[in-house]
């Protein structure tokens, strides 16, 4: 089949995808951008107001607090999730007995929905804190670490599986060669395993980063911002703005656009950095 003939078929193969992509991504995204410049109750009665919404969003102290809280949370959970997941993966690729069972068990929390997890951990943490006569709403730091624990519990198993796949794809001959050359365990880890699994690191940091940043249901179910909105992350703040005050849907939408830009920017930078390291090796 020559090229020209193939080209004739392209609408059939690309068309459905293109239509679907336009309908469920491009159009809503464009509408969202437009709505962030409007005052509206539903999409039907939008009135253009210019950059008023963005002004309101950037002067909203709650939004800035939520941004800062989200950044702190993301940094902590990206580090903890990836470090723990990596070492679990190392441990479970050593061929010890019961590896498969452990892998399954560690992966399982990922199958439970965020809201359910949030409520379960709410009960557990309140039970623990109850022995000190307080509960998770008592202080923002309880809520923060509660969220970190929850995030770790949920994400580690998933990241672990990706790391395991990465480690298993390293040719056994490489490890063996290093071994024969007299490399210590740490040297093997640093100079062989780590560079070889850089693609997995890219995927895992990307996933944890964007998931932590966008965290919503766990946040809603675990603390719902208590105390006094101090543990509200960005997604929750946007939700509260959108539905909490009369006539604030536009501001909520503007916040959502800012949020999308930030997430896209971070993801892009992070991809650039890890990709460049992948290429080096």
């Amino acid at each position, binding site marked *: 089949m020559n090229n020209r003939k193939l080209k004739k078929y392209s609408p059939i193969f690309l068309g459905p995808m293109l239509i679907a992509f336009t309908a469920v991504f491009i159009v809503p995204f464009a509408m969202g951008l437009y709505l962030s410049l409007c005052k509206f*109750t539903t999409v*039907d009665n939008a009135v253009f107001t210019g950059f008023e919404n963005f002004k309101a969003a950037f002067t909203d102290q709650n939004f800035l607090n939520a941004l800062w809280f989200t950044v702190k949370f993301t940094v902590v959970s990206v580090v903890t999730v990836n470090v723990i997941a990596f070492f679990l993966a190392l441990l479970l690729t050593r061929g010890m007995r019961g590896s498969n069972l452990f892998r399954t068990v560690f992966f399982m929390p990922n199958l439970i929905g965020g809201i359910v997890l949030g409520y379960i951990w709410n009960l557990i943490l309140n039970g623990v804190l109850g022995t000190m*006569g307080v*509960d998770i709403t008592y202080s923002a730091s309880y809520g923060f670490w509660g969220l970190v624990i929850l995030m770790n519990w949920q994400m580690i198993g998933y990241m672990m599986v990706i790391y395991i796949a990465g480690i298993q794809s390293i040719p056994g001959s490489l490890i063996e060669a290093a071994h024969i050359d007299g490399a210590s365990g740490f040297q093997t880890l640093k100079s062989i395993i780590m560079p070889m699994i850089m693609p997995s690191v890219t995927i895992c940091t990307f996933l944890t980063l964007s998931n932590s940043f966008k965290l919503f249901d766990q946040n809603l179910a675990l603390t719902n911002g208590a*105390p006094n909105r101090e543990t509200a992350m960005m997604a929750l703040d946007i939700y509260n*703005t959108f539905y909490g*005050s*009369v006539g*604030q849907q536009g501001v909520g939408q503007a916040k959502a656009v800012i949020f999308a830009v930030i997430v896209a920017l971070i993801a892009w930078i992070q991809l650039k950095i890890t990709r460049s390291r992948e290429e080096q090796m």
Partner: protein
Amino acid sequence: MKKLTALIMSCIMLFSLAGCNKGAGDDKNVTVRFLNFKPEIASVYNEIVQAYKEETGVTVIVDTAANNTYESTLAARMGTSEAPTIFQINGPRGYANWSDYCKDLTDSKLYSHLNDKSMAVTKDGKVFGIPYLIEGYGIIYNEELTDKYFALSDKNTDFMSMDEINNFEKLSQLVTDMQKNKDKLGINGVFAATSLKSGEDWRWQTHLANLPIYYEFKNNDIDLSSDATKEIKFEYAENYKNIFDLYINNSTTDPKLLGSKIGDESMAEFALGQCAMVQNGNWAWSQISGISGNVVKEDKIKFLPIYTGVEGEEKQGLCIGTENFMCINSKASEAEQKAAEDFMYWLFTSDKGKDYVTNKLDFIAPFDSFTDEEIPTDPLAREVIEWSKRADVESVPWNFTLFPSQTFKNDFGAALLQYAQGTKTWSEVVTLVTEEWKTESAKL
């Protein structure tokens, strides 16, 4: 040829997908969509619409928003082709948000039956929301337990009956002494847990807060339809603190642990006889009687007004009003609007409809189509009706429909929790309330 067939086939498949949505706007089969606010009675509504369909042939589809999600569900549905024809707003503030969608109901048949015309949501003399049920709340108490207390030989008060309790001072004496004798009474505390988990705190940041705001508006002769309601001084903050302190300090639960308590737990404590009192409204009866192991007897469940220590409160009754105002979607087709009005009119005036309203929905309907006998059988609703008829007391209207927004209520609730936990002083709470009221009102 093959290519052509393939192309045609794929086109057909695409269009048949797109065509699935069509066929709903048929004029002969008008469909009314009703977005229901109360999940607990969703099944009754389904019975009602079935009966209505059998009688008239008109299809009414009932959608129900989950607890606390009415506004978001409504906002999501309103933008679609299956927008609700009948929806509800929670008062003037809700109207501000949905004014583009509220049909003028001034000339509607149902409005002409409304007992108290001042209850409707109006703007510039036009009616946009018709209240369709009346509710009341106060302090619900279990008379068996209070009688048990009155019979104690070593109690420190002289009260012999709940009828003597007619102000905050007496209530406070009674409650503190009951709390001291809680072991003898077999309870864990006088009041059920003050549920302050976020999303579960509406009994305090909305219902209880109604009283100080009511007195402030009344005391200053504020015109409730004017912009004067956009700022408050929270003059009766001390009164709010009185009753709130009484609730949290004489309760089944340590104040520091209130942040994880939900409303259902409070009601369960009351139903199981672990406490003697709980602040809630007449809607709570179905909740109490539905709890397995419920020990509260139907003739022993009574209401007491919420006393806060305001002068002259001996004449204060229960808080009676509504935040359920029916609206018709002005953007629906003419035929749908008419069908929607007919359905609501049928529900509140026809014999069959009224039977559902009083006996299954347990609504106290505010329409003159209901006779004095056509009232719900549930004991709390009857208490509300009795209190509202008493000549010696004046009911407190629901001024919380003027609270500026959900955000205000949520922040107030969060501050109350911090106050209960001891991480915020009362004066900080008062400042937050006045400031938040102002900023949220400015957004209206």
